[in-house]
């Protein structure tokens, strides 16, 4: 029942928003201010016929998704081990602090010139998305390791576990919920970098590329289709990962963000 009610509320919300948009469009009388109907038409055309190069929306989206996944997995593979190390060892953190702390404030966009010069092909996309993913995952992993209950570590010690055993059997499971939340946030920031990555990627396929191409033509209806699709896919992925977290960590208090 509550499920039905939520569904109904959501539908009404979206309908109201679209109606408002249509009304504003009507009064602005501008060729640039696109309307829901135009966006829907563009959506239909992009997904059936394809864009100006004949590439369908699905193909663009799929390609971008795998690019994000590629950079994201690299992000996880590097940020999680480093986060565990820096979380466990204050000395290691002290050593790397002067590099890591400033580096995380450099926006991925600022790295674009370097990426263009030093990388090509798939690596360029992966690098920009890796940048977007790496720091959120690193910081949450470190926080997760810091939050490990010292008293549980002591239990492991009284059973004479080796440091490696205690990391594997206490630190990692204990910080896993933090790492999973970090991964979810990292996937979000990774997605947010896709347009930047595809601006410089050179290939003509990809949702970000599509947005840039139509932007140059001032075809805002198609641009908005791209924006909405990115937003919805990100939302769906986030919900999926949230459900995964709840399933994996029932012993943790509820996560919602």
């Amino acid at each position, binding site marked *: 029942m509550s499920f039905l009610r939520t569904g109904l509320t959501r539908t009404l919300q979206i309908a109201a928003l679209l109606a408002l948009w249509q009304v504003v469009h009507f009064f602005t009388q501008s060729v640039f201010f696109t309307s829901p109907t135009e966006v829907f038409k563009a959506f239909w055309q992009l997904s059936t016929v394809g864009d100006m190069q004949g590439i369908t929306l699905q193909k663009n989206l799929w390609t971008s998704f795998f690019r994000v996944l590629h950079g994201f997995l690299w992000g996880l593979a590097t940020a999680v081990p480093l986060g565990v190390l820096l979380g466990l060892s204050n000395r290691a953190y002290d050593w790397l602090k002067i590099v890591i702390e400033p580096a995380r404030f450099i926006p991925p966009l600022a790295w674009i010139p370097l990426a263009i010069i030093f990388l090509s092909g798939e690596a360029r996309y992966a690098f920009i998305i890796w940048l977007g993913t790496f720091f959120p995952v690193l910081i949450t992993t470190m926080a997760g390791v810091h939050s490990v209950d010292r008293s549980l570590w002591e*239990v492991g010690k009284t*059973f004479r*576990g080796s440091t490696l055993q205690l990391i594997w059997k206490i630190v990692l499971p204990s910080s896993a919920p933090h790492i999973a939340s970090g991964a979810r946030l990292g996937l979000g920031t990774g997605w947010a970098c896709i347009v930047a990555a595809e601006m410089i990627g050179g290939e003509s396929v990809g949702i970000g590329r599509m947005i840039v191409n139509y932007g140059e033509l001032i075809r805002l209806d198609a641009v908005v289709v791209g924006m909405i699709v990115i937003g919805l896919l990100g939302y769906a992925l986030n919900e999926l990962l949230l459900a995964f977290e709840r399933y994996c960590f029932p012993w943790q208090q509820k996560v919602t963000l």
Partner: protein
Amino acid sequence: MSELVYTNINKTFTTVRGDTVVAIDNINLTVRDGSFVCLVGKSGCGKTTLLRMTAGLDVPSSGSITLNGEPIHGTHPKIGIVFQEDRLLPWRTIQKNVEFGLELAHVGAAERKEKALHYLDLVGLSRFSEAHPHELSGGMKQRAAIARALVNEPEVLLMDEPFGALDAQTRLQMQEELTQIYLRENRTIVFVTHSVDESVFLADTVVVLTPSPGKIQELVAIDLTRPRDRTAPEVIRYMRKIMAHF
């Protein structure tokens, strides 16, 4: 055979301001094989510190602790501990929690399971082997923690106010169950508590400690058969005797 001997144990701390505080002042004590010893005293008398030093989680500033004549350096395979908090791993089932120590010691899966189920049965938790800690009550979690300590078959079981966080009724019940476990398992137990009636109900020997600095005030041998009647005149007499130091 397991004899736990404390010789000239001292422990001093340095505070943030740089002052030296004597927490334990020259404690000498022998815990005989199979005996049940309670360390009783107000907070600050060093009873928990003494227990943690026995478990290898703290180091005495001077003096030695030996088990069967061998000095204890760090944690010891023959010494198990139950803390005031259950300290169960929340992501593991109760059975997997009990298996934890065996797992760290690389014991095979079949043997782990067999032993875990045996001790879960001993503490009356067989039905909950597949539950997670958050699904259990405080008393049940503490029973699981006792099973986890027993499964490694320690000669000496240390207990640091294990029932301190439980409600009064559960606490009495747990004391009775622990008496049964002690009678059946016949392991040496060193039990820290600030509750005099708990110590008289459980122990063969009550070690009364006084605070600042922590010192042994008196050793009281409780010469009563188990299980004991909490309201019996002899029990009350022992309680009075110990209470006199508080």
